[in-house]
């Protein structure tokens, strides 16, 4: 027999489920993999050459300073063509993508990002020879972007 109390408990639980898809972590991981595949194609992404500089502990996810520097001579024959930044746990994985060339002189960019939740931030550099290099930093966010209405 279903008592009133049990019925209310069940209805509250199903209402909470209706707001978010149950496997949101998995969906975001798929979106990230898809976004990276779009940039990289079938090429292999190796760790190294890229230095992603971002604070490991973030008080306020609404404004997170980050910079990406890539080791490269930036000559006509050997330069960085593009730098892409992704996050693991935002509603969308993209943060920023820039296109550079030998006229940049040095492969270093900086910006300020919104980070939604504790997770990885990934920078991928595309070289002129077609290879891809990356750097991943795990960050801890205490105050998420997206949620804090009054603070934006």
């Amino acid at each position: 027999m279903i008592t009133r109390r049990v019925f209310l408990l069940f209805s509250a639980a199903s209402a909470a489920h209706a707001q978010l898809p149950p496997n949101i972590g998995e969906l975001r991981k798929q979106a990230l993999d898809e976004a990276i595949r779009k940039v990289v194609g079938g090429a292999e992404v190796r760790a190294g050459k890229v230095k992603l500089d971002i604070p490991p502990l973030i008080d306020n996810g609404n404004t997170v300073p980050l910079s990406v520097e890539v080791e490269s001579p930036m000559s006509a024959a050997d330069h960085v063509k593009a730098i892409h930044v992704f996050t693991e746990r935002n509603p969308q994985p993209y943060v920023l993508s820039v296109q550079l060339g030998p006229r940049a002189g040095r492969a270093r960019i900086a910006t300020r990002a919104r980070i939604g939740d504790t997770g990885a931030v990934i920078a991928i550099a595309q070289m002129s020879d077609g290879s891809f290099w990356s750097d991943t930093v795990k960050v801890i966010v205490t105050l998420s972007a997206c949620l804090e209405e009054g603070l934006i």
Partner: protein
Amino acid sequence: MARVVVNLPAEAKKGEVIEIRTLAGHAMETGFRRTQLGELIPRDIIRSLVCTYNGVEVFRAELHPAVAANPLVTFTTVATESGTLEFRWTGDNGYSASHTASIKVV
């Protein structure tokens, strides 16, 4: 009127790598926030920033909602010749802003 700020040296040696910092005043509304009544606030962001040096494109950035409000983008370029650098931001709802700065190369 859109407000933008660009910071770069007024004078540089030929071949020197100069750092350019750009800042545009914009809320970068993500499209994921809701009002107190639960209505979704539509997305309104700056989508791209392009820098041309004497008419030649030297830098292009594509921005997404995960870039913080008042987007700051810092990059570098080689001072090749005296002239002007033009910066152009474009975004949702017909947003467009531009700025020109001149540089003297000695």
